[in-house]
């Protein structure tokens, strides 16, 4: 009874059962798993009855077997329909209500098919593997079941692909639909296309179509590398080719071809194993990369959030620090303006000291705010074309009183020709020039500060020289770092924040400009050079 042509039946029935049992073992109480198991068992029942139908030669049983084979179609339809409703989860609340009606309907159809001659009246054995069915009057109703429920199953699944939001669930249904599609194409090729063009033997591979479908649905339910259709396809094709080779190895006639076929099969299995392994490794690596990239993205997001919170905190904190300082600064200036009457003469010095200390604190707050933004890379330049002399004039006018208080001169040797316009952030460059001149005033006790301008090749150069204490070479090296003061500064002057030149350098860097200093030595003054590109 058993011949090599029946091998696909055996393979399909066993593999279907193994896959369905695997799915059931993954969740015995889950509706999806149980429904799938039911569907596969019905399909296997159909395959077994089909196998018996074509292979048993006992006329007294053939009608019963044929009828059972016809009837097995209904549990398949029922379980597939139920599967479409419950997989990957139920979205239609009315399913529970129609479930009983469906069960009754299919039960009636089964009874009518098996126990009455209304569907199949007679089965005739024409020859080995050849049968003829004489249909009953209700056979059209039997066919209608197929044309009603099959499109319904597909429609439900397609609707769920659209409706469900989770990517994984969409993918799960797509796998089921792909399995269904591939099985139908396979069945069409083996049982319709090839017999049509004269290759009848291929019809024996037809049952394998159920295996294709079962394999895809198992993958979908177990969510086995679901996002990696590539590996599933590789696994699938390796399995299919291995099965074909296996069948051929069995069917081979001579010993030599048999040995040859078995060798090819073994070699193929080895290569197939390595192919799947390589594909899996590649995917594993990609998954790891994706995981790392996801984690990095998450970490970056969190950092950005933290960074924004920090920036806001600094802005608010400096606001809070500045507010009382504004009041102190304001009231001191009002007292000095004699708004509240003339203050006693002996109050002049303490009031000046309060004023100087307040200004120092205000400057420090501003400098710290600038530095926190520079170091966070948050400084955005507002570039515009400006006249450099306007900036220098405004700085000189702001600092002239400070110089006057120390009895220093502050000379701006403005060239006769108007200075070329520069493309800069006005406020930042003003801050740079102000910091350098302010620094000169602080570190000079006699003489004063001179500002000169020189035009170079596509650059504007400002030269700010003072007659102050000068610097050693070592001091010059550290000049543009934060919280660094010249040793003279540390000894004589303590009101510098130690941040002015550092900020000046950072702002100039952002403008592609340069700043450097020269000093012939201690007691011989210093000269600062600021270079800005003209365009």
């Amino acid at each position, binding site marked *: 009874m058993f011949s090599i042509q029946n091998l696909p039946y055996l393979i399909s029935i066993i593999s279907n059962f193994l896959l369905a049992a695997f799915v059931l073992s993954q969740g015995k109480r889950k509706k999806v798993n149980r429904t799938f198991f039911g569907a596969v068992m019905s399909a296997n029942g159909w395959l077994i009855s089909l196998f018996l139908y074509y292979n048993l030669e006992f006329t007294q049983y053939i009608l019963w077997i044929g009828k059972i084979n016809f009837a097995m179609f209904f549990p398949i339809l029922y379980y597939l329909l139920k599967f479409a409703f419950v997989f990957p989860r139920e979205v239609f609340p009315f399913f529970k209500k129609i479930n009983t009606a469906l069960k009754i309907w299919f039960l009636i159809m089964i009874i009518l098919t098996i126990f009455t001659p209304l569907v199949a009246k007679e089965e005739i054995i024409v020859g080995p593997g050849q049968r003829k069915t004489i249909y009953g009057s209700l056979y059209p109703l039997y066919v209608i079941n197929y044309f009603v429920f099959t499109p319904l199953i597909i429609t439900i699944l397609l609707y769920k692909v659209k409706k469900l939001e989770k990517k994984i669930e969409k993918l799960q249904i797509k796998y089921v639909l792909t399995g269904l599609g591939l099985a139908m194409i396979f069945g069409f090729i083996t049982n319709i296309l090839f017999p049509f063009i004269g290759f009848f033997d291929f019809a024996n591979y037809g049952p394998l179509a159920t295996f294709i479908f079962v394999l895809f649905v198992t993958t979908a339910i177990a969510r086995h590398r679901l996002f990696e259709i590539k590996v599933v396809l590789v696994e699938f094709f390796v399995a299919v080719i291995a099965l074909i080779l296996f069948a051929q190895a069995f069917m081979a006639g001579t010993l030599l071809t048999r040995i040859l076929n078995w060798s090819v099969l073994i070699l193929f299995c080895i290569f197939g194993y390595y192919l799947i392994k390589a594909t899996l490794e590649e995917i594993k690596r990609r998954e790891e990369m994706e995981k790392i990239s996801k984690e990095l993205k998450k970490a970056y997001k969190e950092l950005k959030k933290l960074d924004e919170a920090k920036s*806001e905190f600094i*802005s*608010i904190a*400096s*606001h809070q620090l*500045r*507010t009382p*300082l*504004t*009041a102190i*600064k*304001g*009231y001191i*200036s*009002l007292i000095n*303006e004699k*708004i509240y009457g003339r203050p006693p003469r002996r109050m002049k010095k303490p009031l000046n000291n309060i004023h100087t200390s307040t200004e120092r604190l*205000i400057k420090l*707050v*501003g400098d710290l*705010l600038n530095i926190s*933004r520079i170091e966070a890379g*948050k400084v*955005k330049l507002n570039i515009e074309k400006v006249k450099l002399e306007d900036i220098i004039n405004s700085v000189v006018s702001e600092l002239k009183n400070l110089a006057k208080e120390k009895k220093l001169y502050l000379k701006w040797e403005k060239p006769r020709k108007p200075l070329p316009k520069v493309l800069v952030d006005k406020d930042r460059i003003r801050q740079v020039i102000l910091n350098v001149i302010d620094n000169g005033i602080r570190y000079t006790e006699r003489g004063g500060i001179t500002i000169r301008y020189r035009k170079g090749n596509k650059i504007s150069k400002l030269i700010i020289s003072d007659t102050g204490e000068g610097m050693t070479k070592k001091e010059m090296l550290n000049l543009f770092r934060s919280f660094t003061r010249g040793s003279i500064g540390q000894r004589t002057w303590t009101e510098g924040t130690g941040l002015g030149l550092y900020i000046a350098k950072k702002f100039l860097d952002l403008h592609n400009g340069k700043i450097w200093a020269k000093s012939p030595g201690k007691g011989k003054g210093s000269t600062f050079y600021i270079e800005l590109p003209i365009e």
Partner: protein
Amino acid sequence: MGKKILLIEDEKILAEMYKDKFSKAGFKVIVAFDSKEGLALAKKEEPDLIILDILLPKENGIEFLTWLKMEPGISSIPVVVFSNYDDPKTKKKAYQLGVKEYLIKANYTPGKIVEKISDYLK
């Protein structure tokens, strides 16, 4: 009669200090302590200029500027932001909403700010 200024400032000490100085300089000063009161007073008094703080209780200065833009009668009143909140984004937004200038309070004595405002109103 001097020019009329609306000062929107929630820090009482500062509000008092600036009010004193502006009044002594001959301005008529109206003070509001939050944005809503500021808008109501702007509608009622129609000042020549508004000095606006940014960090205010409930709605901030930027929201005040948005409301002001939607009030046809008073939307053209010049506004100078006068705040210790030195945040580039806020500054940009304020300029987009048409303020004349964004000044940092700590950099100005009352005398200096009076000079600056007088220049605007000349």
